C-alpha cells in the first residue's frame, strides 16, 4: 500500500499532546465507531487564546498523526486563527497523506471546530 510520509510516521509514533484535560474549557468530539475514527479534543482557553490542548483518538495511523499535528498547529493561537486551519493545511503540514486517508485530516479540522463551538455555546450561556 501507499507509504506514509516521514512526518506522518513521526507524529504517529511520537504523538504530541495525547491525553485528557480534566478541567477543559471546551471539548470537541467527531467521527464514529462505524467508520473507525473517533477524535476527541480537550482545550484550555484563556483570553481567547488556546493555551493548552490534548487529544484522544481511536483510528488509523493518519488519524493519530493528523490529531497530533493539529494540536501543535492551534496551540497558542486565537480562536479565530484556529478556525482558519483547514484539513488541507493539516495534510500539508504532514507532507501529504495518501488519497484514501484524506478524510482523516477532515476529522482533525472538524474536531477543533467542534471544540470551539462547544466553548462558544458555553460562554453564551454565561452572558
Amino acid at each position, binding site marked *: 500500500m501507499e507509504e506514509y510520509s516521514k512526518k506522518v510516521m513521526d507524529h504517529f509514533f511520537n504523538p504530541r499532546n495525547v491525553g485528557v484535560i480534566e478541567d477543559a474549557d471546551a471539548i470537541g468530539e467527531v467521527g464514529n*465507531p462505524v467508520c*473507525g475514527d473517533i477524535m476527541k479534543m480537550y482545550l484550555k482557553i484563556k483570553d481567547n487564546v488556546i493555551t493548552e490542548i490534548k487529544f484522544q483518538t*481511536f*483510528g*488509523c*495511523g*493518519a488519524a*493519530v498523526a493528523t490529531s497530533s499535528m493539529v494540536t501543535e498547529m492551534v496551540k497558542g493561537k486565537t480562536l479565530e486563527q484556529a478556525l482558519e486551519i483547514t484539513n488541507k493545511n493539516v495534510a500539508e503540514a504532514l507532507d501529504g497523506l495518501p488519497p484514501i486517508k484524506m478524510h482523516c485530516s477532515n476529522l482533525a479540522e472538524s474536531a477543533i471546530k467542534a471544540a470551539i463551538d462547544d466553548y462558544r455555546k458555553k460562554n453564551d450561556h454565561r452572558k
Partner: protein
Amino acid sequence: MNRIIYLDNAATTRLNPKVLDSMLPYLKESYGNPSSIHFLGRENKKAIDKAREQVAKSLNAQFNEIFFTGGGSESDNWAIKGVAFANESKGKHIITTNIEHHAVLHTCKYLEKYGFEITYLPVKSNGIIDIEDLKKAIREDTILISVMFANNEIGTIQPIKEIGEIAREKGIYFHTDAVQAIGHIPIDVKELNIDLLSLSAHKFNGPKGVGVLYIKSGVNILSMIHGGGQERGKRAGTENVAGIVGLGEAIEIATKDIEKKSKYLITLRDRTIKELINRIPDTILNGDPKKRLPGNINVCFKYIEGESILLMLDMKGLAASSGSACTSGSLKPSHVLLAIGLPHEIAHGSLRLTLSEETTDKDMEYLLEVLPPIVENLRKMSPLIKNK
C-alpha cells in the same frame, strides 16, 4: 530493524527455494513455446504436463481435469461466470455465503446485473454456515453452490463434505474456493464431491500469478479465454510455463507433509491464542477455535484500531494484517468480521496472524512480548476506554 518475522502467510508466502530452482530453466535456456513442434517446444509441453500430473495427484483428480489460470481470482471468476452462463437455460439461481472472498462476492454481484439471483448464506458466530440454511435455500432453478473451503480472514473451515453430498444429491454444481486451504489441509475432490475448485500457487510457497481451476469432467462450463487451443481450448494464451512448473512443484511439496506440518502449526497456534487472551485484557478470538486453518490466528482487541496495531508491529519487525477499514481500502471494516456479528468498533480492532512452518516458538515469544505494550499504549490514546 533487527528482526523480521513474517506473520502474513494468508496474504502470500515465501517462494520455496526448491520451487524457484525448478522454475529457473524455463526462464532461461528452455524458452520454447509449449505449442511448438520442435524440441524446445516439446520440452516445455512436457514440463506443463508434469505439473498438471502433480496437481491432479495432490487433489485426487484426473490429469485432464486440471486447468491452469492466472491465479485464484481468475479461477473463481471462471468457475462462477462460466457455469452460470453455460447453464442459464436450466436456472439462474446461485447459492454462496456472505463471507466469501471478493473474487466470489463481486463476481456474484456482477451476475445479478444479468438477471441471476444469488442467495448469500449467513454464517453462525463461529464463521461456519448452518447446513440447514443451505438445504432451505436450494430451489428448482439452483444451478451452482459456491462455498469457500476455508476463510482467508478468520480461517474457519466449512463442512465441505456435507455440502458436496447435498449438491450431488440435488444435481447442482458445487464450486469451492480452496485458495487458503490447499497445501494446508488434505483435500480429495472425489471424496468431497467437489465439481470445481480454485487454487493459487503463491499461497503454498509457489510463485504469484498462477493458479488452477479443477473442473470435474462432464461439468458444463464456458471457456475463460478464447484464442488458441491451450488448456484444451478453455483458457487460451501461451502458458506461463515457469509459473506452472513452480505451481506443480510447490503443490507436491506442500501436500506431502501436510499432517506433520499441521500438527506443528496447531500446537503453536493454540498456545499463542491462549497466551494472547491471557496477557491482553478484552481480547476476542474470531472464528471457530477448532475448525480453523492450522496457521490462522484472528483476534480483536477492543477499543483500538487495526492499522495502528500493524504500524506498531511493523516497527518491531513483525508483518501482520488486519480487517480494519483502513486496511480494507474502504471506510467499512471487513465483511467477514461483520458477518460473524461483531460490532463495527470491535471489527476495526482486528489482528490477523498467519503462521507458516517456518514460524518458530521464539517468534511467537517475541510477538507475545511486544504486542501487549503496543495494545496498552494505543488504549491509552483511545477515547473509547475510560482511562484512570
